[in-house]
């Protein structure tokens, strides 16, 4: 078992530092009005933070490819669920009544 990769201390603290920066960024960004980009920016920062945790703290960068495949598949299936559910809600009333309120407002897009 000795060949398991020991991550250098420097990397751990660097990642921790990056995660802190990400936290500051996400709180800061919340107070800036970026229009329709508000939520995407928050989600992108969260995704970057999550990837850092997964790659380094959870050692996926140093593990077998299969482990990475498992991790990706979880998020991929979540995207399937979101995409196919939202395609219903975004198209409710198409060709019937006038578009529902949120299509005009646009929370995400």
């Amino acid at each position: 078992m000795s060949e398991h990769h020991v991550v250098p201390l420097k990397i751990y603290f660097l990642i921790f530092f990056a995660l802190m920066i990400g936290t500051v960024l996400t709180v800061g960004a919340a107070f800036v009005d970026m229009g329709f980009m508000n939520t995407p920016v928050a989600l992108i920062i969260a995704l970057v933070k999550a990837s850092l945790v997964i790659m380094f703290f959870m050692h996926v960068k140093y593990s077998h490819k299969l482990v990475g495949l498992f991790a990706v598949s979880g998020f991929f299936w979540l995207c399937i669920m979101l995409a196919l559910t939202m395609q219903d809600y975004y198209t409710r009333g198409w060709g019937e009544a006038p578009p529902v309120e949120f299509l005009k407002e646009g929370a995400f897009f």
Partner: protein
Amino acid sequence: MSDHAQGAHSLHHLHQFESAEQQYESATLGMWAFIVQEILFFGGLFCAYTVYRNTYIEAFTAGSHHLDIFWGTLNTVVLIASSLTMAMAVRSAQTNSGPGRIIGWLIATIILGCTFLGVKAIEYTGKWHHHLIPNSTFQWNDPAFPTVTLGPAKIFYSFYFVMTGMHALHMIIGVGIMLWMIAKVRRNEISAQYFTPIEISGLYWHFVDIVWIFLFPLLYLIGRHH
């Protein structure tokens, strides 16, 4: 003939495995498969959240304004720090730094985890006093958001409590696992040759951290520029 029941092999691999390496890989892969199901377990909540966030933008903004960014940010920092201490615990097991080191890092992780839960308790009590618990006692009246009605506001708080509640439950289980790991270290069951239990407990802990990384902006930081 080799009798697998009698542990003719090295101390730390179970009879169904042919080698310690196979056992280590199986355990981490198994934990990852479990994390995949956790992603979809929370994923169901995120999916429902997305639907309502899009339907009731105003109400979600209003509800979010009643959550305290200070506590939320503090908890984010605490949880990320606990991930670092957890990673350090795994690393000290890997590098044979002795049981004292490992236990030290594990205790640090537990303390940070409990801090998180304590802050959560403070926040929950606050919501209780403001009648924002989403059961039949829920009350809603916010002059800053006159268009927001009780129903959608309640739905926001349902998500807040179910999502953070499920997350907190995972934290509590995590703290329990850490205590178990401390017991394992004290019984000298952990070494650089065999640190699988700590490694996979760490995977679980980091996953719980990741859930919070998404919950924080999605619940606390909606439409703050208003």
